[in-house]
C-alpha cells in the first residue's frame, strides 16, 4: 500500500468515515470528529502507522491533510506520485 493510501486510510478509520471522502484538502472543517480530541487519536495513530514522532508545534499546525503530508515528508516518509 502506498503511503498516501496509508495516510488516507488512517484518517478515514480514526474519524470513522468513508475513505473516498478523504483528500488532500480534507480538514477539521470538512471531517466530522476532527476536533482537538479527534486530533489526539489521529496523532497517536499516525505516529504508530508511520513510526514517527511529531513535535508539539507541528500538531498545532495540522489544519489539513496536505499539511500532515508535508510534515510526514519532512520526517522521511515518501509519498509516491500515484494517481489518486
Amino acid at each position: 500500500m502506498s503511503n498516501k493510501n496509508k495516510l488516507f486510510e488512517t484518517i478515514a478509520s480514526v474519524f470513522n468515515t468513508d475513505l473516498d471522502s478523504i483528500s488532500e484538502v480534507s480538514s477539521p472543517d470538512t471531517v466530522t470528529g476532527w476536533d482537538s480530541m479527534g486530533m489526539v487519536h489521529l496523532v497517536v495513530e499516525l505516529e504508530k502507522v508511520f513510526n514517527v514522532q511529531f513535535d508539539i508545534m507541528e500538531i498545532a499546525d495540522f489544519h489539513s491533510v496536505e499539511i500532515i503530508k508535508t510534515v510526514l515528508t519532512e520526517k522521511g516518509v515518501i509519498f509516491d506520485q500515484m494517481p489518486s
Partner: protein
Amino acid sequence: MIINANAPFLLPSDIRQHVSEALADTGIVAVRSALKAVRSLPNEQRGKTFRLGIVRTFTIETQIDILTLAMSALPCQIEIKISDLENIEQELLNPASDLLQWKPDAVLVLWRLDELLPALAFTPQVLSHEARLSAILALVERIENLTKGYLDVSDVPLILSTLPLPQTVDLYDLHDGSGRRHAVEKANAVLLNLVAKNPCFFLFDFAGWAAKKGAVAFDQKMDLYVRQPIAASAIEDFSLFLARTLRPIIFPSAKVLALDLDNVLWGGVLGEDGVSGVKISYDFPGNVYRRIQQRVLELKSSGVLLVLVSKNNRKDVDKAFSTLSGMPLKLSDFYEICANWEEKNRNLVKVAERLSLSLDSFVFVDDQAFEREQMQFHLPEVSILQVTEDPLTILNALELTWLFDRFRLSQEDFGRHSDYQLQTQRKELEQNSSSAEAFLWTLELRACLATVNEQSMGRVLQMLGKTNQFNLTTRRHMKADLQGFLNSPKNIILTLSLADRFGEQGVIGLAIAVAEGVDILRVDSFLLSCRALGRGAEDVLWSALVQKASLNGFRLLKTEYLRTLKNNQVSDLFDRFGMERLTSNQNCTEYQLALPCLVKSPAWITVT
C-alpha cells in the same frame, strides 16, 4: 504489555486475543474493532453491567474506549460518564447533580497537583514558605470537606485516586518542608487515612502506578495540547490497573488456593529425592521456594483457604513437613491435604463438596503442564495460574494475581480457616450421629435475629454480593439500595446469626421484604451463607419473617424464585415452606402465602 496472564479473563480465547492485541496497540482503530468484537458476544458472556462516574481535573475522554476494553475483558459491561473538567464539588456534593442523578455504581476521582494547586505545582518558589504551607493546608481541607460532604448526599462507593508527583520536582522541593513533594505526600496521607476509616471510600493508587511506571507514564506534549497527561504508550497499563482496582467492587474474590507440592512449595520431587534431597532453605535456590511459601502463608492470613493436592504418599508428606526446618508453612495451615495418586480434579471436586463452595472460587497452581491441562479440561471453572517449571514464575504469579484481590479484610476473612475447620468437625460429628435431627440437637444451635445495623452492614453487603447457591433471587443490591429499603419502616429486613457449641458463625442469613401498599409484603431477597446449610437456619429465618409480617398487619406475602446457574438447590424451597405456587416458567416461579400465618421454627435451634 499483553494482558496479565494471571488476570481473570473469561472471554472466549479468540476474542481475548483480539482484546489483548488492541490493548497493546492502544490506537483507536484497533480498540474500536476489539470493542465491536466483544459487543457481538451474547450478553451473558459479557459480564455484569457497571456504571462508573468519573470526576477529574484532566482530560481522559480519548482514553475511555481503552478503559472500556480493559473492563470488558474481566468480563464487565462498563458504562462511563465523565463530568466536566474540575467540576468535582459541583458533581459530588449536590444530590441533584447530573452525575449522581445518573445513579452510578461507583464514582472515581482523578486529580493531580497541577490543577489542584497550580501555583505550588509550577511556581512554588514564587510563594513564601508560609504561603505554600497554607496552600497545602487548604488542599487538605478541600479533600476533607469534599469527602465529608459526599457522605451526606451519597453512599455510592467513592474511589479516590492518590496524587502523582508532578513531573518537575527540584531538590529544594524535597528540603524546604513545603514544596511539591511535601504537598503530594500530605494529600496522599490524608487520602490513605480516609479510606482506612470509611468503608464507602476506596483508593485508586494513581501515584503508586505512576511511580512504578516512571517518566514514560506521562506525555507532556498531549498534556499541553489538550491537558491529557497519561501517555498513549502507558494507557493500556493504566486501564488494566484501574480495571484491577474496580474488580473487587464488582466480583467476589477467590476463596481457595489449591497447591501442588513438588517443585512448587519446595524444589525437587519428594518421592525421588527424599526428604534430605528437596530444596527449601534460606539460601539459593531453596530461598525461592521459601519465598513462595511465605507468599502462600500471607494469602492464608488474608482469608484464603489452602488445599494441598500432591501426587505423593501421605506418610512421606507428613514426614517431610515434620522433619524439614525453615519451612514457613506447616501442615496445619492447610484446610485439607490431598496427598494421593488420584487425579487432582477429582480431589478438588471432593474438597469443594466438603466446603460447600463452588469450583469457581478455586485457584490451582501446578508446575506441570499436564496437571494444569487436565484440571482445565475437567474443571474449566477452576482458575489456573499460568506458571512454568521456573519457580520464579510461580512466585510472581502468586504475587501478581488479581484473583484474591479485596479492599478490606473482615473478621470473617481472618477467621475463615478455623471456621471451615470447625465445619469439618461438625460434618464428622454428623456422620457419627444416628439420625440427622439427633445430630442437630448435639450442635446446641443458637440463632439471633436482628435488623441491619452499622456493625452488620458490611457483612450484609458482602453476602448480597457473594451468595450464589442458597439465594432465592440473587439480587446484587448495593449499599444505596439497602439503605433505601431500611429507610422505609414498613419494610422488614432481618439478619440471622448462628452459633453452636463449636463457636460463633456470625451473620449467615438475610431476608429483605418490601411493603407493596398496605396489605402486601414482597420478599425481595432470601439468602443463607453456604457454611450454614443443613441446620434448619432457613426455617428460623422464614418463621421469623412470616411472624413479623403477620404481626405488622400484612395480608399477603408474595415472592418468587429466580433461577440462576448456581441456585438450583433452593428451586423448591418456597414449596417446602408451604407457599402457593402461582406461575412457573424456566426462569421464574411466583408464590404467595395468605397472612396471618404461623410457621414452626425447628426445635433444635434456640432463638434469641
